């Protein structure tokens, strides 16, 4: 009995010691576990990386806004070209009616001066020849005008396509640079300064490339000038043929009348 009591007392003491050691060791081990990652401490995020998402959104939004305005300008450009040419067509049509009426008045008076049937016939031939020459001249003008407009529209469309491609490349470069910077910040947010330098350099290159491309925008104006010169040359050639035909008709009529003043 005494031996049993002594044994129990010994066990109790041992348990107390072990429990005490556990109480002391447990927090220490927990501390040791929690302090293990201290060798891979999360790096301090740089202000640049913190602000990057906001700044990237600002840049993207501004780019989208200006890109939208450019698309609006192209739409208006096409509409304005159509309007310009409609105005020309309306004026040409009105003028042609006016000249036709005045010319017909002259034909009527000329016919009244014809005393014989042969003279009347000669006036009719003259009238038909002049009208044919006028119609031929007008058809040549219409053709030259159409060619001019097709060329201008083609030059404008080509320029729009070229700038669209340049704009897409610009946007891709900007978005690529921003994505790369975001990825770098996610990888190592403490390297804000280096990441910023790279981003600034990439954005500068993208911007300067796009701006340098703008130097060729002015070529469309010189193209339009050249097309106008080509059209005017066609006008002059048609007018020259027209005058020759009308003059020949006039001489034929003068012969029919037997005098040089008809």
């Amino acid at each position, binding site marked *: 009995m005494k031996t049993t009591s002594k044994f129990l007392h010994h066990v109790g003491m041992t348990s107390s010691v072990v429990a005490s050691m556990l109480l002391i060791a447990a927090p220490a081990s927990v501390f040791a576990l929690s302090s293990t990652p201290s060798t891979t401490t999360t790096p301090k995020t740089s202000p640049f990386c913190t602000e990057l998402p906001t700044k990237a959104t600002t840049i993207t939004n501004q780019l989208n806004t200006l*890109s939208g305005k450019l698309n609006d300008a192209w739409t208006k450009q096409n509409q304005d070209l159509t309007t*310009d040419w409609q105005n020309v067509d309306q004026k040409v049509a009105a003028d042609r009616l006016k000249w036709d009426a005045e010319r017909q008045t002259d*034909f009527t008076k000329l016919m009244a001066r014809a005393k014989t049937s042969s003279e009347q016939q000669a006036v009719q031939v003259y009238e038909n020849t002049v009208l044919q020459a006028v119609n031929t*001249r007008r058809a040549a*003008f219409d053709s030259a005008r159409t060619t001019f407009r097709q060329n201008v529209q083609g030059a*404008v469309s080509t320029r729009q396509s070229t700038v669209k491609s340049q704009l897409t490349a610009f946007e891709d470069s900007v978005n690529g640079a921003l994505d790369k910077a975001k990825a770098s910040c996610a990888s190592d947010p403490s390297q804000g300064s280096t990441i910023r330098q790279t981003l600034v350099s990439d954005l500068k290159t993208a911007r300067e490339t796009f701006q340098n491309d703008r130097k060729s925008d002015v070529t469309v*104006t010189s193209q*339009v000038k050249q097309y106008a010169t080509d059209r005017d040359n066609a006008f002059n050639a048609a007018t020259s043929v027209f005058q020759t035909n009308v003059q020949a008709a006039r001489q034929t009529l003068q012969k029919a009348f037997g005098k040089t003043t008809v």
Partner: protein
Amino acid sequence: MGTVNKSEGGAGFAVVEAVLVLVIVAGVIGAGAYVYSTHHKKSTTDASLTSSSSTNQAVPLNGTTSSINQLTQQDAQVEGNVDKSADAQSQATAASANTAASNVGGAYNENNL
């Protein structure tokens, strides 16, 4: 008395003489005006009937080949000018989107990052 009568007779002769001079002068002026008028009208008519194709000359009479020539030339010239007058506008329109394109390049200032 005789002196007075002589004086009155001289004054009467002077009046008649003055009237005659006026009549002669008026006749000369009238004849000159008639001749000038007739000549001017004739030369204008001749010019209108025989004028060449130049549009700088006086407007020919209606109902002549000169008039028709002039009309047809004016027709062609005016029509060509309508197109030419719209060229400046076409050039401006063709370049109207250039500013918007340039503005895209200013979407940001990378140095402000």
